[in-house]
């Protein structure tokens, strides 16, 4: 065992000394490799953390949301629709939701204005009061007790006193929210007393959600139904797809790296061939040569993978992924400050490892086989 271990260490000694002959080139290759892993792993880690967060927080979403449609476009729901649904069995709570968008010209950001449920006293608001998200407070530079003006495109404006700012820990779901009273909302958007954005239905028995959704679609023909499962599926799909897109964008980089690595490794240089011949001549066997190359490939690819992953972890979970923020933010003016709970999708990380380490191993080791098996004299000539 000791003998085997010593032998492997000597092979590594030789490999490191041989690689040091072209220090700059090999270091450059390693840095590119590490950077590639870093970017890909950052995307994977961020995606899995967001996915996990979404899966957890939206367990409390309404079981069914009924949304009015006309010509495929959203249409307001009415109180009469709510009454129809309240008559359904299995749906103990049916509420009209009031929420909408406001483009704030002063800050260039989109806000989501919303009226809280009357059943939640912690969000109770009098007319002229608002509870705002941390992103809104940050953008408009307002604190609790200060006023915030909102101007509607139709003309009415709201002068609201900030009653509270939603906690930064909830920024992922509340960053752009402006909670106002029912009366303020209707006046601002010039809505009738019986109009609602959509209807939220809470089902007593989770196993009956499908049945209730069916009944809702029958009861309200002009409405589309969105279940909680749809919400959860949306976010599962979005972040997988998003990662897929980013991975697709990076495939160009991966291919370029593949070409670089393959070019480096696929044909042995004259010096490498000569060196292999010399090693064989002085008593190394085929196995030693191949193992030496395997160590070279493993050291480069494994250290690059581990370094890239560790850096990506720190980048995403300690520094909130600033390098990816620009991509995710797009044209958004308002972007939440989010500290995500770390989550590692083992399958994806393992796949990343296999897709990057194995091809590199093959690219390094396969070309050496022929030279390693030949007679030393033939290799040296």
């Amino acid at each position, binding site marked *: 065992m*000791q*003998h*085997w*271990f*010593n*032998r492997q*260490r*000597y*092979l590594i*000694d*030789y490999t490191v*000394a*041989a690689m*040091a*002959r072209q220090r700059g080139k090999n270091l450059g290759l390693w840095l590119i490799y590490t950077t590639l892993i870093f970017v890909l792993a950052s995307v994977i880690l961020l995606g899995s953390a967001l996915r996990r967060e979404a899966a957890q927080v939206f367990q409390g979403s309404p079981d069914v949301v009924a949304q009015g449609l006309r010509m495929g476009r959203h249409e307001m729901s009415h109180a009469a629709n709510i009454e129809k649904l309240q008559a359904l069995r299995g749906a103990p709570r049916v509420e009209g939701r009031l929420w909408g968008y406001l483009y704030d010209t002063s800050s260039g950001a989109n806000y989501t204005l919303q009226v809280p449920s009357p059943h939640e006293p912690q969000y109770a608001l009098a007319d002229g009061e608002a509870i705002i998200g941390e992103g809104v407070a940050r953008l408009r530079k307002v604190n609790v007790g200060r006023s915030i003006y909102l101007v509607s495109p139709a003309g009415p404006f709201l002068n609201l006193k900030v009653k509270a700012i939603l906690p930064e820990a909830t920024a992922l779901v509340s960053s752009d929210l402006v909670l106002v009273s029912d009366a303020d909302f209707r006046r601002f958007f010039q809505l009738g007393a019986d109009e609602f954005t959509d209807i939220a239905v809470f089902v007593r028995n989770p196993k009956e959600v499908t049945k209730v959704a069916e009944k809702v679609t029958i009861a309200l023909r002009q409405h589309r139904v969105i279940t909680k499962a749809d919400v959860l599926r949306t976010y599962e799909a979005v972040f997988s797809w998003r990662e897929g897109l980013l991975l697709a964008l990076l495939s160009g980089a991966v291919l370029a790296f593949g070409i670089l690595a393959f070019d480096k490794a696929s044909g042995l240089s004259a*010096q490498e061939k*000569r*060196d292999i011949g*010399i*090693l*064989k*001549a*002085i*008593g*190394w*066997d*085929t*196995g*030693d040569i191949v193992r030496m190359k395997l160590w070279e490939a493993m050291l480069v690819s494994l250290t690059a993978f581990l370094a890239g992953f560790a850096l990506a972890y720190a980048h995403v979970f300690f520094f909130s992924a600033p390098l990816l923020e620009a991509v995710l933010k797009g044209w958004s003016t308002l972007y939440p400050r989010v500290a995500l709970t770390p989550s590692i999708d083992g399958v994806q990380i393992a796949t990343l490892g296999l897709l990057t380490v194995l091809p590199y191993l093959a690219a390094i080791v396969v070309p050496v086989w022929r030279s390693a*098996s030949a*007679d*030393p*004299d*033939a290799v*040296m000539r």
Partner: protein
Amino acid sequence: MLELTQVTKLYHEGQPNQVAAVSEVDLCLQMGAVTVLEGPSGSGKTSLLTLIGCLARPTSGRVALHGEALSGLPEQHLAQVRRSTFGFAFQRFNLITGLSVRDNVMLPAYPLGLPYAELVARADDVMAQLNIGHRAAFKVELLSGGEMQRTAIARALINNPAIVIADEPTANLDAALTTQFLDIVASLKASGKTIVMSSHDPRITRAQVVDRVVTMADGHIVSAA
């Protein structure tokens, strides 16, 4: 005893440029002796040395050491024989550039898996014997011709082989270094080693330490005094 029986080596076999580097050679090398293969360029000296040192397999014929056939051994066993029995010093030294003298000297012993301190001590001993210990940490490409040659010989000796093979060892050396080299050969012979060399340098073929001169021409042995 190292015995070659009807050994032939063809290069580019079956092709229009086929050449018989060694042709039906019979040779018997006594242990503990210094044998020199002499002849003009292209006479097959280097090819014969590579066959003796198991760096190449003969196209036909048999190479045997103490009665055991070497030429038909599987590659792994042949590598072990190369490692333990033979030490080869090449004409152009064939040192691994970018590595230090000590690293080059230690290379043949790597597969043995010895403890590092022991291997370093062994290398230091051999380098001291050949008076290149003071260059141990130097990269080999920074050495003079004589130092490279002594490094190559040190590498050939690290595993304490019974048979030392040197191909044109003085081709790139001046008279003083040639004399130095012959002193090394004498001390190796005194320690019981078998030395086989190729050379067309009369300072080597006529040296006192040489026991036997084998003359070659066109791949054949012409005379074996």
